[in-house]
């Protein structure tokens, strides 16, 4: 065939594979941030446990008290171990025309957004982000919230650079 497009197949061969890219991890400080988040979560769970024990009168029965505390301890340790996994699984890769983001511990996800489908992107910083000097990069498409990407745990310079790059590519496309 003398088509302009040589790859006339439904599934063209030799397409760059999104899952084989060099994925870049997040800033080390994000791991600490995650851990602190999980510690706070564990503390909240402990308070809830103590309140429910106190109101049900189980606080002074050694059986309930020890049982409750034991379960809490196991959950908390699991959570803290999880933090490392959560951190490790989160990574992103930027190509000339798109950005991919991997995440998820139990259910793993890999999402790719072409740059010229991006509606806008912004940087947000929560309280802990400000403490650790980190930023989140939010990338929005027209596909609704489930197709948006939020990349947490970026250093401020990295987030700014990434945002500037994405904005420059999406304006290039328009011209």
């Amino acid at each position: 065939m003398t088509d302009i497009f040589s790859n006339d197949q439904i599934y063209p061969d030799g397409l760059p594979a999104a899952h084989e890219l060099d994925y870049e991890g997040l800033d080390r400080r994000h791991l600490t941030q995650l851990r602190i988040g999980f510690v706070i979560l564990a503390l909240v769970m402990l308070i809830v446990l103590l309140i429910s024990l106190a109101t049900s009168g189980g606080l002074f029965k050694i059986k309930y008290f020890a049982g409750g505390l034991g379960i809490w301890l196991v959950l908390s340790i699991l959570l803290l171990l999880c933090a490392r996994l959560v951190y490790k699984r989160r990574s992103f890769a930027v190509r000339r025309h798109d950005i991919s983001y991997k995440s998820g511990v139990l259910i793993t996800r890999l999402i790719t957004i072409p740059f010229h489908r991006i509606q806008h992107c912004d940087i947000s910083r929560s309280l802990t982000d400000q403490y650790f000097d980190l930023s989140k990069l939010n990338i929005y498409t027209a596909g609704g919230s489930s197709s948006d990407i939020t990349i947490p745990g970026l250093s401020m310079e990295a987030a700014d650079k990434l945002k500037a790059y994405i904005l420059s590519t999406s304006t290039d496309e328009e011209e």
Partner: protein
Amino acid sequence: MATRDWSISQRQSKVAILVKISDFAKGLLRQFWVFIPLILFGRDGIRTELAFLLLFLFFGSFSLILSIIGYYRFYFSIENGEFRIRKGVLKKVDINLPIERIQSVNFQQGPIHQLFGVVGVEIDSAGAKGKEFEIAALDKASAEALKIALLEERSELLAEKSGDVESVALVQKEERQLLFQHSMWDLFKIGISQNHLRTAGILLAFVFGLYENIASMLFDDFFDGVEKVLGVELESIWMTILIVLPLFLIASFLVTLVRTVLSEFNLRFWMSPRGFTLQGGLINRKQTVALLKKIQTVRWSANPIQRTMGFFSLRLNQAASSEVAASKSTKIAGVYGHQLDSIMQHTYGALLDDEVISAKPDRRLIYRRFLFLGILPSLAAIFLAIFTQAYHYLVLPALLPLIYWIQLRWWQRFRYDVGRDLLQVYRGFITHKATILEIFKVQAVQISQTPYQRRKDLASVHIYSASGNVTLPYIELSEAQRVHDTIVYRAEVSDDSWM
């Protein structure tokens, strides 16, 4: 038609006051309808009635005053290539909409509009929120003139930008062709073929809601009456079910029928080079436009009744400008097969004849669905039956073979066709469903794997468009990656605008 100077600030038709009051009343009614039976049948005596009367007077005069002031504060005009609205009673607003951003100008007519021969005008744009650019009421001639003025100015502006005068002129003169118009008989058949179970569900929720709110005072009387008429006592629950169920089914049937007739009355559907126009409805007469360029996904479905009559329900989902996604899809409760074919042909043309690769989810999806929808609930039911001695729970485990069969049939129906430009997904066992989307319009693609899928080298692919998503569940990981990479590639090499 004399040309009007739209740069001078214009007012709405005075009917707008009435429309605003009725909107206000409708809003109140929607919030507080549960109290109406209380007011009508309440046994608290004169004092509550007085209180409600006072409340009614208060809200009534309040909305009247607001609507009148609102009318005198509302101006619209076309200035410097922008459509401008100034309005607001408590908070003054002055908003401008660049005319080239206007997507469509729609008219709609509620009962009040119809009575006075005016129309409500909605100016739809990419990026505007909800009903920002809406004129509550305008006489028909002015509305048509405004529409023409806006669209002409937009064409000029766009032509200046692109230099493509010819195609713009073409758009202006575009002729639309009536594709179909439902007769009363069609309408009746469409009404019959709708999903009555859904109405039954809504009705059930409604009845329970009512029951909660006004307790048994109405229903006790009702059942007493039924008992008297039938001469039997409704002591056993089975008797009640025997009598209430048929009544209930008839009611849901009638409600769906009436609803369909009201919303699809005198429905007309036109094709034009740029898209489709739909007009119809009895109480709320509505005109919607679906531009081919903006259509992201097309969905049709056919339940068993519809299939025997040769009908399909159709939705043309357009890119939504904001969160009002639901209103951006053009819905038709019933089209005949050949009409669906022409609509599909007009939307996708030759793309439909392209070769495709058909595939389906892995067989293990049946077992997983059977596990989650059959076995686990059955185990729970068995436990419940043992511990509470309520043996009717055992119905569920007895239904297991049926549940398995349904999952099997469901899987057999699930198929997706990947072509160069179109992705078509067919599914649904009782109601057949199809989703068609143009691959280059996809916004994002995601591969996800549950722990089970990871062990078996399976994955699910989620494909997001600007209006409607598609999931291909439980396909081989390598296949999922191939689909993912291909869709991303097609979206990236395409120069066409996705809306």
